[in-house]
């Protein structure tokens, strides 16, 4: 029998992209999935991509809008 980490990894490989999707695919508790994802990200087995408003990291360099109009920060959505 495979454990939660292996199940989460398999669900990611099968196309699940969010914690609720992985929870549905594995039948695991959502909090357990979140914990497993955090652990896998810390171990380097899974990449995590937080989606916030604004441009992604590295996009400022060379952007025509940055120098005069953007501030060197990203707008964050409320938690």
């Amino acid at each position, binding site marked *: 029998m495979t454990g939660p*980490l292996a199940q989460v990894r398999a669900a*990611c490989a099968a196309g699940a992209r*969010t914690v609720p999707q992985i929870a549905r695919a594995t039948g695991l*508790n959502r909090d357990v999935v979140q914990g497993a994802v955090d652990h896998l990200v810390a171990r380097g087995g*899974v990449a995590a991509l*937080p989606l916030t408003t604004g441009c992604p990291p590295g996009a400022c*360099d060379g952007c025509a809008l940055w120098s005069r109009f953007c501030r060197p920060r990203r707008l964050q959505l409320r*938690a």
Partner: protein
Amino acid sequence: MSRSSQGRRPATLPVMCLVGPPNVGKSTLFNALTGARATMGNWPGTTVEVARGTWRLGDGASATLVDLPGAYSLDAASPDEQLTAELVADPDSDDAPDLTIVAVDAAHLSRSLYLVAQLRELPRRLVVAVTMPDVAHRRGLAVRPAALAGHLGVPVVEIDPRHRTGLAELAQTVTAAAADPVPPARTPVAGIAEADDERFAWIAAAVAAGTASDGQVQTRWSDRVDRVVLAPVLGPLVFLAVMWGVFQLTTAVAVPLQDLLGDFFAGPVSQGVAWGLGGLGLGGTWVQGLLVDGVIGGVGMLLSFTPLLAIMFALLALLEDSGYLARAAVLTDRVMGLLGLPGRAFLPLVVGFGCNVPAIAATRTLATPRQRLVTVMLIPFTACSARLTVFVMLGTVFFGRWAGTAVFVMYVASIILVVVAGLVWRSALWRTLPDEPLVIDLPPYQVPTLRLTGAVAWTRLRGFLQTASGIIVAAVILVWLVQAIPVTGGTFGHVEVEDSLYAWLARGVAPLFAPAGFGSWQTVSALVVGFVAKEAVISSWGQTYAIDNPGNIAALGDHIQAAFAASSGGHPLAAVAAFMVYLLAYTPCVATLAAQSREIGWRWTGVGILVQLATASAMAILVFQVGRLIV
């Protein structure tokens, strides 16, 4: 709280360590337990700061409580975590505590329990303090301390340090546990991955046994919404419907405002400048031509689109702030899999729909040069906001109340173009590109705030205004200069535009576009100027047709319709559709090319230009030749 150098341990009091992941309320708990009897200082031999205080346990008993740096696990990733791991896990340490209190977050129990799982594999006295029960209750989750303790094999106490509840029970539990024998340790499984998996299985069982849910946690309303908007078939349909609504609402609301602003530039602004120049003795000179026909005719025409862009940016910012646009981005991630691109590539492509330049810079987050190359090649096919401006204008002129639908069709065409081009690039260059499992952390849905929506929309609108006041002004002056040079009649600054160098040059190129139905010099010249910046297509038309009514949108629309009708042999709708497709696919603006060359070099940038020109030409000819059979 005073500061002092930390000694090792006072001789008489038992030492208890407080550990736990960051942000579980550990320091709040420490302060509640020790009050003002605490000191701060570096742990001896390290630069790690810890707090130490005396905890009155009751019945005259006390203990020294040490608040150690937060740590998710005993696998240290920083000097702070290293100290925590050494103190609580090293069996030979002189500083090993008599008892360890692990603070865990009731609302995120699984994330907190990994440290407990590791500590339970060591012969240690442990007490688990479950914090933030109020937050968990609001999420419909309740911890059952006795059941959780039964599974973990150590005492569990629920506390709320902020409201000072459970502190006495914690003191009693700790006092009793300190007097008990050390509980037997769990036997770890061999192998790092296997051990991790076993610990999470243990955690999952503990969470199942030790918590009760009223169902809200598993079926939040946002989850139910996500099941629809992220569904494989329904999700894209919802996204397309939303985007159609955005473009339709934009054109319906903005066009009257745009007409008002256009009339303002065509009337008071043009007449005022002409009157002022007349007062200075410059009336009828080339200076008036430059300012009225050039700058006001070109830049003023472009600025009349400000209300339209303001509304579109505000609507998109509303979607962004609500959390929906992030869901739409997840749908794009599936397309990346189809293209064999890594999931991470979707973010630069999504950004490309705003502006190609930052999108190209964002490809640096991709892991390999191949991934970056393919993504950079695809980004120019995304319909940036500059192209959308031209689409809106043409949609308004040619499709009336269906303008929003016309823009929406171009938006969808852009997505299809990215997919097809991606498949071609992949089959031509690399069959597979390495990927890694990806999890997307979606923001919660929320009611959009006026402040954030306004800030995002304004930032983008300012970008448009910057372009209009910078590179577009330069392009307008250059176009005016070329239009002022006579070739077939007139003198400098006093020449009909069709007799100018501008028209003469454009006539030389125009026949190449005849198969696509827009082989008139007025149309082709706008495309060439659009190489500088796509918005310059509009400003150049504004200048070319500015002879009678500089800045007048309705008059400009009549001129453009006539030009397309003439060049297409009476099929203007097919021709304008072909023109819009060409504009979507052909060479991006100079800023984008500069960004491309910086990321992938001039050789691949050159290849990209050739591919885009060939793609744009083939598609435009196909659209016109098929379209003329229909309309």
